[in-house]
């Protein structure tokens, strides 16, 4: 043991690289099979006391340094790990090289774990103890179905630090990946071996926290194969909520409909002869009763207007208290035809609802105003008590439906982006006719 070793992180062995003479630190005690010189990138046999060179490699790193420095310790899923190795691997898809990074995590008592990073997306992987079963385009693992995402040939481009197996730059492995976000299953095949690993998506911020790293993690670009959709969990929820609310609304509507008396409290028809002057025509109706709870009142005015109008100043007056509701309604209807064909505007009927009218004895004061050139006019007034307002339910229904549709759309879009990078894109992005 070297004398100057700090108490918490002893340097198990201090040796020198036989290629360039730089100091080599062995961190994983006897676990490491391969160690890579950090200065000249020679791959060395960590088990050989003389550190025999296994592969001389002039790394073109392209500034590719591990984001988590070798030797960093952190806590992952409750276990302390030290980052001892780093490698860059790549696959070629349609002539484009996709690179990712792998970090080897070491604890002398626990199985090795791996962290992978691609474009700011992280995964925490370990070797599967249970063997997944491949069926067509899916893999069954511990009772869950993972969908095939991609099969590719991975090449090791660049290595640094220590590895629990003998790693070589330029090594190839056939990799098949299956996803069930947030998890991924990965099978690495060589002639002599198939190794399955299971990984779980991690956010850079959590890695930074786990390893107490300075600064902030690189931003995640795009959608990764097993990245949990920020909306997919909500889709089922929002539709369930929508359904529950829709049922609730229907019950509410049915309830209001049952409770509503919908009775006509007053109805009368009035006549205005042609050319009868306006003014002084104000009159009051007979008294009518509103019974039951405080409720709304619907007043419908119907007039046989034809290319004319009638304006009515109404006052609904409570005989007992003198409380009055004043309002004006216009009924107008115009029609004709022009070069575009026939047209019409307005309606012969007008309806208004007055909310929260208490029970009691009421009468209407009506003051009609008419077009001075009017012909004979007949208008009728109908007063209904306690009518269900169904329009409100329609608005509530829409207010619930729109976010459900929006979230579903976002979820579909997210999945489309995820699978666009796979062997099985949902929609061909170049969809030319």
């Amino acid at each position, binding site marked *: *043991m070297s004398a100057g070793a700090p*108490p*918490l*992180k*002893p340097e198990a062995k201090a040796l020198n690289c036989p290629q360039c003479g730089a100091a080599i630190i062995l961190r*994983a*005690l*006897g*676990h490491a*099979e391969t160690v890579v010189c950090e200065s000249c990138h020679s791959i060395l046999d960590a*088990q050989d006391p003389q550190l025999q060179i296994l592969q001389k490699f002039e790394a073109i790193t392209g500034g590719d340094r591990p984001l988590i420095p070798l030797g960093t310790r952190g806590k992952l899923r409750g276990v*302390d790990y030290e980052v001892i190795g780093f490698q860059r691997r790549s696959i070629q898809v349609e002539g484009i090289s996709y690179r990712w990074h792998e970090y080897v995590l070491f*604890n*002398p*008592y*626990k*199985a*090795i774990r791996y962290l992978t990073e691609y474009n700011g997306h992280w995964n925490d992987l370990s*070797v599967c*103890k*249970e*063997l*997944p*079963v491949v069926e067509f385009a899916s893999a*069954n693992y511990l009772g869950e179905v993972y969908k095939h995402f991609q099969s590719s040939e991975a090449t090791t481009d660049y290595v640094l630090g220590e590895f*629990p*197996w*003998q790693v070589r730059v330029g090594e190839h492995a056939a990799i098949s990946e299956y996803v069930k976000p947030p998890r991924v299953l990965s099978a690495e095949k060589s*002639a*002599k*071996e*198939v*190794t399955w690993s299971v990984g779980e998506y991690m956010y850079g911020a959590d890695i930074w926290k786990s390893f107490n790293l300075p600064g902030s993690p690189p931003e995640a670009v795009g959608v990764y194969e097993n990245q949990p959709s920020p909306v997919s969990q909500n889709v089922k929820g929002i539709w369930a909520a929508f359904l529950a609310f829709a049922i609730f609304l229907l019950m509410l509507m049915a309830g209001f409909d049952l409770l509503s008396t919908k009775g006509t409290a007053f109805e009368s028809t009035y006549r205005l002869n042609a050319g009868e002057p306006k003014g002084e025509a104000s009159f009051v109706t007979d008294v009518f009763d509103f019974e039951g709870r405080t409720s709304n009142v619907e007043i419908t005015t119907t007039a046989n207007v034809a290319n004319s109008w009638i304006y009515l100043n109404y006052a609904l007056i409570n005989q007992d208290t003198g409380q009055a509701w004043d309002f004006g309604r216009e009924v107008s209807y115009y029609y004709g035809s022009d070069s575009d064909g026939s047209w019409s505007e307005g309606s012969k009927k007008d309806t208004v609802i007055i909310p929260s009218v208490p029970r009691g004895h009421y009468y209407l004061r009506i003051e009609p105003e008419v077009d001075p050139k009017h012909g004979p006019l007949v208008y009728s007034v109908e007063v209904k008590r306690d009518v269900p307002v169904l329009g409100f339910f329609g608005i509530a229904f829409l207010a619930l439906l729109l976010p459900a549709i929006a979230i579903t759309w976002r979820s579909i879009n997210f999945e489309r982006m995820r699978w666009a990078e796979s062997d099985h894109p949902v929609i061909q992005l170049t969809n030319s006719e």
Partner: protein
Amino acid sequence: MTQPVSNCPNCGAKIVFQWSSSVQTVCQYCKSILVRTDVDLKKVGQVADLPPDSSPIQLHTEGVYRNKAFVAIGRILYEYDQGRWNEWHITMNDGTSAWLSDAQNEFAISFPSHTTGLPAAAQVEVGQQYTWNNERYTLTVVTPAHYRGVEGELPFEYWDKTEVTFADLQSETGKFATLDFSDEQPALYLGEFVEFDDLKLKNLRTFEGW
């Protein structure tokens, strides 16, 4: 339980067998490999010091598997082209013996099986499936290995073995099997992967800083 006691024929040191069925042991002092005969111990070879090794398990490590206490009394260290692994010979408190394999801290416990009709070394291939004890196993790796060293007590004579071939198999339920082709008759070991924490190991090696 009275443990068989003898003396090393090479250096005279006391040899205590932890397990009455042990066939071979290594003298802790002179590293002689000793094989039990009916009456005495015979020196059959000598091991070099084991290379620096990483297993958190050591001789006398104790643990619990399926409510049975066990203790590690011997091991074989194997080497293959990608690295090394340990097969710890453990004895359970009911007198049976088993193997606790430690491959880069991936642990599995297996017991010898008396299944017959096993495939020959030349026949095995990655991807093949076998059914033993109603469990379907898939062959995941064929490993040509050689032994790098032995320590402690073993249930068979292992001192002259060099090149051996193993085939490892896995099931969908976490079961584990090894075909051992070191003898003329292939041997099968059946078991399962185990979690380090579940074994409740005591008397482990300590690693400075961990």
